[in-house]
């Protein structure tokens, strides 16, 4: 098991490297470098910089180095010094801006993941065991609908509905009076009141997908001979299903973290923009539109790393759950 964990972590390194390359690529994508953007924005406000100063800045940021050197400067800054570069729009180091936003992104993603699991597990099992029953058809229908409605449309719709019929504004995570307040029960309750919409919005498509996967897997497993063996032992139907096929159908459920998590983070990004939540999403969009590329690239890098860690966790959980993986 320890060997497996180690192997799995080592395997992550090339993927991590690939993700950093993509992020760096995106940083470099807009024409010009950030000094030109800086000069442009300074020119807008009527300021100028003398050429000596410009040359000094170019040297410190290594803007005239070959691409590969720039990449290494950038990545070693992140890995060894936690230096993600400088945000020109905010006039602060990127590392000061991202952590809080990434934290809330992670928190909402995990909350959504828990929601996805808690809802899809019972419904999936019910659907597979009672195939073609009314309940199954209802679940399937809502599953399809959940998959078909894009996150941001669902967010807009819920926003409209709650504004129109409940007269409640649902943007943000807190009502105005709690925004800067200290933690109290009232504040937690207020958070809950705001959190349910983003969690439903973000979790719906993942829930729908997982129900379908669980139903298909469980249906396969239900017809396996070992289920008949378990029945022939005289176990009650509930025990037969929970101890045998569900136990195995859980595997894709756990490994689903691997692809549900990127989806959730995607979902958080766009939903947060619509609902104006203080997560990475709105800041990322703003950074991209104003071409504040170090900030944007750092967000993209961290989101990729986050999903990688999620995948690692799901693989390790899977190994705990399934001895066949553990032993080979």
């Amino acid at each position: 098991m320890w060997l497996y964990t180690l192997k799995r972590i080592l395997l992550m390194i090339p993927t991590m490297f690939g993700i950093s390359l993509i992020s760096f690529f995106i940083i470099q994508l807009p024409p010009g470098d950030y000094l030109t953007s800086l000069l442009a924005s300074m020119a807008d406000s009527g300021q100028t910089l003398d050429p000596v100063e410009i040359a000094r800045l170019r040297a410190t940021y290594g803007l005239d180095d070959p691409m590969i050197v720039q990449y290494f400067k950038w990545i070693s800054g992140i890995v060894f010094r936690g230096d993600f570069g400088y945000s020109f729009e905010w006039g602060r180091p990127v590392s000061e801006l991202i952590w809080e936003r990434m934290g809330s992104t992670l928190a909402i993603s995990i909350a959504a993941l828990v929601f996805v699991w808690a809802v899809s597990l019972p419904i999936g099992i019910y659907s597979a065991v009672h195939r073609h029953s009314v309940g199954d058809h209802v679940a399937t229908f809502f599953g399809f609908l959940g998959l078909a409605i894009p996150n941001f449309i669902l967010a807009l719709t819920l926003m409209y509905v709650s504004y129109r019929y409940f007269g409640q504004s649902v943007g943000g995570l807190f009502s105005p009076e709690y925004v800067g307040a200290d933690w109290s029960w009232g504040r937690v309750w207020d958070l809950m009141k705001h959190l349910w919409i983003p969690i439903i919005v973000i979790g719906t498509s993942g829930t729908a997908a997982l129900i379908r996967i669980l139903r298909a897997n469980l249906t396969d497993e239900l017809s396996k001979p070992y289920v008949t063996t378990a029945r022939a032992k005289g176990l009650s139907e509930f025990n037969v299903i929970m101890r045998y096929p569900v136990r195995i159908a859980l595997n894709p459920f756990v490994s689903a973290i691997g692809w549900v998590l990127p989806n959730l983070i995607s979902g958080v990004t766009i939903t947060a923009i619509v609902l104006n939540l203080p997560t990475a999403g709105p800041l990322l969009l703003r950074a991209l539109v104003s071409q504040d590329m170090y900030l944007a690239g750092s967000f993209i890098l961290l989101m990729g790393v986050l999903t990688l860690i999620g995948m690692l966790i799901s693989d390790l959980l899977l190994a705990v759950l399934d001895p066949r993986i553990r032993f080979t």
Partner: protein
Amino acid sequence: MTHLVHTPTELPPDRPMAPEDTGPAISPLRPGDDPGKIAVASQWTLIWRKFLSNRVAVFAGIVVLAFYLIAMLAEFLAPTSPSLARPQFTYAPPQSIGFFVPDPDGGRSWQPHVKGYTMSVDPASLRRTFTIDDTAIIPIGFFVEGPAYRMWGLLDANMRLMGPLDASQPMNLLGTDALGRDLLSRLIYGTRISMSIGLIGVLSSLVIGVVLGALSGYFGGWTDLVIQRIIEVISAMPTIPLWLGLAAAVPVAWSPVTVYFMVTLIVSLLAWTGLAREVRGRFLALRHEDFVTAAILDGSSRARVIFRHILPSLTSHILAVVTLAIPTMIVAETALSFLGVGLKAPVVSWGVLLQDAQNIRAVSTAPWLLIWPSGAVVLAVLAFNFLGDGMRDAADPYET
């Protein structure tokens, strides 16, 4: 060998010898069914038949076809031009079609029409609001002359499927937007852009996926390893942030057509991995099937094995996977345009239309701006999903 005469006393009382059956006992569910009839059907016939037996999938297929028909005939179907702004009718609500008008003599006569608007100005905010005026009748007709257009950029025409008889009168079946543009016309033109992005996007990702998948399968070894890594990296990335990052780099100054193709490319750049993985997996599985080994032993060249034996077995699966990938493309375009980094204003797509619904105040004034475009997106996605599911089930006609 001596015959033993045995009285089987442990058995139920002796019975006459069971008759010689000629086959398994089968009764048809409905009289007249012949279970043996499928024997001479080809695999494609079986796939088609199995697909047809899935009512939902067939219906979804018809919906998809209808969408593409609308996309193709957008100029003719739309009552007016999508960019025609009528500032005098901002946020005008949808009108409904009536067919009979009351005659002066108390009877009713045939006259397709919509109701006109009355405008009132809120004295405090000076905002104009429109309500339907049941007394104002705007006669409409089919195959009427409307604003001129160029069909597919080739033919000059001005025939519209329907429109007001008097072109200066308003006909907004789905309402108007902030500039008084007709939502129905915009939606129909948007269908063309959104549906074609789905199709072109899926084709380009299929090309990328098949080429890279084939390279990976053909060279194996390091090439395979590197390509598999790339696929892994890309599928590990959350798509929306990455899409945003790429799309935001598209220069604002580019022409709408270039932006359209760039957005399509960006959307398909991330979507090919699923296709490549699926194709590669099926390919590898088929490569070890006995009938492929048999073909190799028959002396078939590598190309013949691939094109005559492996690919035909793959096509139905690829078709299904491709169909299931189209909605992802459509949603991606919609999301990017909605966020303002995809297609931009003069171009009309579903995502561009939804941009107008970003503001909660606009939506509460004119909910139709949210309802219709998102309805179109959801319906298209649903239809593609059901269609693709039906195709996937039918791709293996022997499984029940």
